[in-house]
């Protein structure tokens, strides 16, 4: 897909584990894994908002568009 999820990069920058983030935003590890591996078909605004709030970043820091 042309949309790339840079969640791993942001987590590394903030030195936070996936499990911690999942617990804080109320997401299951399975769903977070779907998001990280790029299998997700859609992302809710509420999820995006929670991630941005926890990692103190902008949606653009997590999502990136690359022309295939």
């Amino acid at each position: 897909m042309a949309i790339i999820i840079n969640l791993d990069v942001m987590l590394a920058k903030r030195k936070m584990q996936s499990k911690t983030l999942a617990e804080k935003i109320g997401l299951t590890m399975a769903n977070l894994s779907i998001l990280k591996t790029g299998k997700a078909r859609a992302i809710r605004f509420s999820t995006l908002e929670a991630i941005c709030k926890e990692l103190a970043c902008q949606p653009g820091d997590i999502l990136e568009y690359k022309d295939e």
Partner: protein
Amino acid sequence: MKIFNFRNKPVIVQIAQIFLGLNILSIGFLFIAMSFSILQNGFEQGFQQEKISIPVKMLGENSHQTQQIIEIENKQIIVTPFNIVETDIELPFYFSLLTPPSYFTFFDLSCLNLLFMLSFTFTLFQIFRSISYSEPFAIKTLKQINIISIILIVWGIILLIRNAYLDYYLRDFSNNTFGFYTVFTTPSSLIQTGIVVFIIANVYKRGIAFQQDSTLTV
């Protein structure tokens, strides 16, 4: 209880499953018993022509009479009060597989019809067995619904052809005195139901796509 797979299912579905299971057993028993007796008879007589009692409907002026003796080709044919032909004219062997037994015409209990009834009920049972209430839209269930629609349409078409053929044969044979008679068999409604089930299967297909979208939305 593994056969029924009752886990997490409402009581009404469990009852339906038990009912379908009993239905399969009874239809299966009838099918095996009838085909066995017909084939045994066929082996004994070398699959030659044989005398068969056939349910018929009287045509034209004779239709108001309940019992009569008709003569065709110097042979006597007795039509009983229950619209059954008892004849000494021999018919091809395959007629016994196609025609319902003349002593019980309310349901079409011919071997051909019983075979379709059995496959339909078995597929319906499989659907009830495999359906999951936590994840209702599954590809396996979609395949089974498609099979049901195919069975219904093929069943209807085959019965339509059989009824037309037997009616033509009997009218031709009796010089338009009587025709083939079934009460319960309505091939056109089977085809219509098959088409409706096919449409439902297509809607179900969209349901599967929606469910996948929903699962992959985080």
